[in-house]
């Protein structure tokens, strides 16, 4: 009887069941088939023999990776760059949001927001072009500044410098994303009860103390959640950014896992090793996301991603 009801229901809604077919096909083909493709990481893949006929080699590819300088270098760079971004870039939007919130003129606040959100909408390739101009040691703004302080012609090309390149990744990331990063914090600040500020004022708190004792605590949960998710993305050190900005001169300090996968496959034709690198990254990511989501839920049951 129940099964009969179910069938009647499905027949009545059959259009709904037809509608999901393209979507299911899409996810099957473009997400689940590549997941199956990762099995290549466990094969001795050669283009000539194809996927099916290549021999199984177990974990040999992974073993080889961990003994390859290129891989360990990429892994190290990925973690270092990620940690730099976490330490230096992550706090800036919080600071900016708190300060933006203190602006009395709503119109002016909007103007500043419109200005600082802008680079988020611009691709890394374009920003690479802009940086190329600004940092040019012979014509750029950096040249003007150095000349002003009497260091004419003594500027390094930061884009080609091993010492500065990682710093440049952090600074350019701040320039591009810090403004837009304030969006969620601003939204959270808007939900703080104004009475809390009134109460703080009555207690004699000045602006600074209000920021410290009301605004910042109001942001606490948002900060913790975003921080945790950022940690979950530890192995994503910014493929589009690095790929747009780096050059052979700075590979040593900026080759990350994603760019290494690309090079293994398309410069060296080592598809199995490249896939193994990808699988390693995807698995670590999965574990990190599961752990960080668990922690996020512990802190605030509402805020896990799932």
């Amino acid at each position, binding site marked *: 009887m129940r099964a009969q009801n179910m069938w009647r229901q499905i027949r009545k809604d059959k259009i709904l069941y037809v509608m999901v077919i393209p979507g299911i096909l899409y996810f099957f083909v*473009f997400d689940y*088939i590549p997941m199956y493709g990762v099995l290549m990481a466990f094969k001795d893949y050669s283009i000539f023999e194809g996927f099916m006929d290549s021999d199984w080699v177990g974990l040999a590819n992974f073993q080889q990776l961990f003994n390859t300088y290129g891989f360990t270098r990429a892994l190290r760079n990925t973690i270092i760059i990620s940690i730099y971004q976490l330490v230096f870039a992550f706090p800036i939007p919080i600071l900016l949001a708190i300060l933006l919130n203190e*602006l009395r003129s709503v119109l002016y606040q909007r103007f500043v927001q*419109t200005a600082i959100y802008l680079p988020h909408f611009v691709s890394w*390739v374009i920003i690479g*072009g802009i940086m190329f101009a*600004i940092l040019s040691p012979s014509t750029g703004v950096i040249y003007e500044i150095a000349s002003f302080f009497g260091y004419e012609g003594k500027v390094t090309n930061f884009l080609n410098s091993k010492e500065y390149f990682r710093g440049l990744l952090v600074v350019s990331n701040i320039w591009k994303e810090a403004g837009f990063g304030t969006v969620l914090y601003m*939204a959270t600040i808007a939900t703080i009860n104004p009475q809390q500020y009134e109460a703080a004022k009555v207690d004699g708190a000045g602006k600074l103390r209000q920021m410290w004792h009301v605004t910042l605590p109001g942001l606490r949960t948002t900060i913790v959640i975003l921080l945790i998710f950022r940690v979950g993305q530890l192995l994503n050190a910014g493929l589009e950014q690095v790929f747009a900005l780096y050059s052979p001169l700075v590979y040593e300090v900026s080759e990350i896992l994603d760019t290494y996968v690309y090079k293994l496959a398309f410069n060296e034709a080592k598809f199995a090793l490249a896939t193994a690198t*990808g699988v390693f990254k995807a698995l670590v990511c999965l574990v990190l996301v599961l752990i960080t989501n668990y922690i996020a839920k512990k802190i605030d049951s509402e805020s896990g991603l799932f």
Partner: protein
Amino acid sequence: MGQIILVMFMLLMALLTLYPFWHVLMYSLSDPRRVLGGGILLIPRGFSLTSYQLLLDSKGVFDAYKNSLIRLVAGTSINIFMTTLFAYPLSVKRFIGRNSITLLVFFTMLFQGGMIPSYLLVKSLGMLDTLWALIIPGAISAWNFFIMKNYFQTISPEIEESASIDGASPLRTLFTIILPLSKPVIAAIALFYAVYHWNAYFDAVLYIQSQDTQVLQVFLRSMMNTSSLQQLGGADSFMTSIHAVTEESVKMATVVISVLPMLIVYPFIQKYYVKGIMIGSVKG
């Protein structure tokens, strides 16, 4: 007093963000013979449109522009169609199997096959070197799917059910009830997709080899990485004679031309984009 310092500080932040764009624009408008030695801070040194002329005389820019526009329009339309088509049935409570399908979609956010298996798939589908490779593999973003599905769920249950009892077909309900009520979320998601398509470049690096099919961002990238004049096609005697002086200027003109469309639409879309981010951050 504090407010004045704050206003000044924020002005500084805004200028620091905007100035680099201005600098590049001024550089591109300067007389190429006078840019060496710098001095372009607020206004161009001399004035010349030579770099733009050189750039616009080449075929590459137009192809790249055309391809990026096709990608933007076709890509976003397919995205919206596919995402809505998939999100609506799965937002209907009585749909049998919706939890398992949703779970399968969700899992794709946690684990992906990665660059190489995707590349081999696109290759075996014969999509390499076609714009399809930039449109079809990203037809539905799981993230946007969830935003849309959650939004549909916040409006639908009772209205949906009563429409169904009144004998309205699910399609009719979608078009006459759900979609009109979901305009903000659809606009926001269309913007997410559109901005993504306009700025994306790594997939084009992977999937597109031929110059004629290349998109604007990759055109700009090869322009920056190689000699811009060679990129524009050939180093004949005329080219080489002005080579040293205009190389950088042409690069800057390319940056300006690439960023211009976004700068023009940005003031109009910014508000809706930000609103969309907030809709998405409310967990459904």
